[in-house]
């Protein structure tokens, strides 16, 4: 067990209005400070000898100091991968061209693709975004950059699991990744909802797809576990997540998600607290969470949704989560990006 990688939620900025997005872009966009990134990289290298960095968002290529971020990664001798919607891929390529050391340390480009065809993907992520991804795929192939296609599954695209895997293989992806939708806290949850048995069906289909393809097909944390007591990568400290405000928090799925009361997943502000001290506090949060799960198991019996570890965790932290009735927990309070996510409400006109 080791701290294998550090994930930086670089920015909340994004050009898209994805229905399943967990961020709350109605807020003024925030960017993770370069000073905090440099501090964390130095501490992680010294303390843990960590080698890998993940850049996420929002859309990480919109960070105003992305060039400086990449140079900090190079200076501290990390390798890196990035999760992107592909819309600014040519700008990213320009940064790689200008700095060969940045390119040498890039291990993968993870492209978000939420459908195996244009209609499905654009219906979820916005018109034109499918072709943005395909263009990025083409550029990765032309420049020899390894890329992964990753899909967030939900009711609107779950029928395309096999088509998605085949497409990724045909395009030459290094890997296909299919993850489980987390509750967004918005009105979209109703249309995106799948019951527990449907998630288990999806999981079996992904396992079968993985056996059929020579390309790796992976499922990030979140799917059904027979054993309810399950210790995930984040809880093992194999990955540490720095949110957009520069705080060490439990995991990326918690960051930016509304909660009842102050967020309990946050360990410390890394601008003012050492990574060592913040990590110590995080272990306290993890221990408390695991103890709570043991207590719930002792009270038992638990429901079907409690076999989905991320869902259990979100419920424990008073965040939006799935229930047999649909979505439970707090709602995202603010309007989404440019208001596009807000439920249409007709108000009386005051003259």
């Amino acid at each position, binding site marked *: 067990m080791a701290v294998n990688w550090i994930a930086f939620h670089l920015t909340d900025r994004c050009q898209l209005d994805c229905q399943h997005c967990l961020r709350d872009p109605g807020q003024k966009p925030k960017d993770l400070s370069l000073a905090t990134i440099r501090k964390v990289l130095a501490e992680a290298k010294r303390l843990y000898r960590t080698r890998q960095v993940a850049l996420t968002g929002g859309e990480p290529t919109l960070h105003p100091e992305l060039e400086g971020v990449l140079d900090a990664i190079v200076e501290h001798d990390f390798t890196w991968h990035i999760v992107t919607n592909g819309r600014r891929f040519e700008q990213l390529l320009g940064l790689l061209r200008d700095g060969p050391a940045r390119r040498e340390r890039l291990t993968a480009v993870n492209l978000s693709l939420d459908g195996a065809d*244009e209609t499905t993907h654009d219906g979820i992520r916005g018109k034109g975004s499918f072709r943005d991804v*395909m*263009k990025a795929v*083409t*550029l990765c*192939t*032309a420049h020899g950059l390894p890329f992964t296609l990753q899909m967030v599954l939900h009711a609107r695209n779950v029928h395309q699991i096999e088509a998605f895997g085949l*497409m990724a293989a*045909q395009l030459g992806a290094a890997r296909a990744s299919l993850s489980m939708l987390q509750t967004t806290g918005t009105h979209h949850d109703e249309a995106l909802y799948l019951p527990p048995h449907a998630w288990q069906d999806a999981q079996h289909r992904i396992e079968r797809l993985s056996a059929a393809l020579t390309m790796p097909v992976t499922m990030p944390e979140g799917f059904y576990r027979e054993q309810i007591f399950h210790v995930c990568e984040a809880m093992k400290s194999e990955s540490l997540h720095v949110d957009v405000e520069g705080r060490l928090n439990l995991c990326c799925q918690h960051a930016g998600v509304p909660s009842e009361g102050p967020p309990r997943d946050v360990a410390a502000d890394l601008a003012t607290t050492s990574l060592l001290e913040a990590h110590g506090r995080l272990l306290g949060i993890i221990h408390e969470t695991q103890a709570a799960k043991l207590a719930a198991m002792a009270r038992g019996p638990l429901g079907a949704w409690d076999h989905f570890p991320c869902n259990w965790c979100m419920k424990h932290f008073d965040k939006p989560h799935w229930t047999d009735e649909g979505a439970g927990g707090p709602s995202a309070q603010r309007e989404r990006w440019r208001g596009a996510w807000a439920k249409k409400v007709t108000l009386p006109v005051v003259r």
Partner: protein
Amino acid sequence: MTEPRLPRPNPQVLFTELDDGTGVLLHLDTKFYFTLNAAAVIVWKSLAESIADPGVIAARITSLFRVDRETAARDVDSVLREMLEDGLVLPA
């Protein structure tokens, strides 16, 4: 006299131009990649501009590369035929 009509780009084909003047076509239905040399890029761009005369395309190539008009015209015909066979362009 009626101008010769040329095939048009298949809307299911995505064109990406690379820095060195070459290009890549990705057929979104078959997921096949096709590489284009710099002259073929000129052919593709000309089709996208709805140029109707292969002679105009050949002239563009002649002005940019050290190739005579007759060879350029033959190459344009050849590229168009291959693009048609691969479904990259649709018949006029």
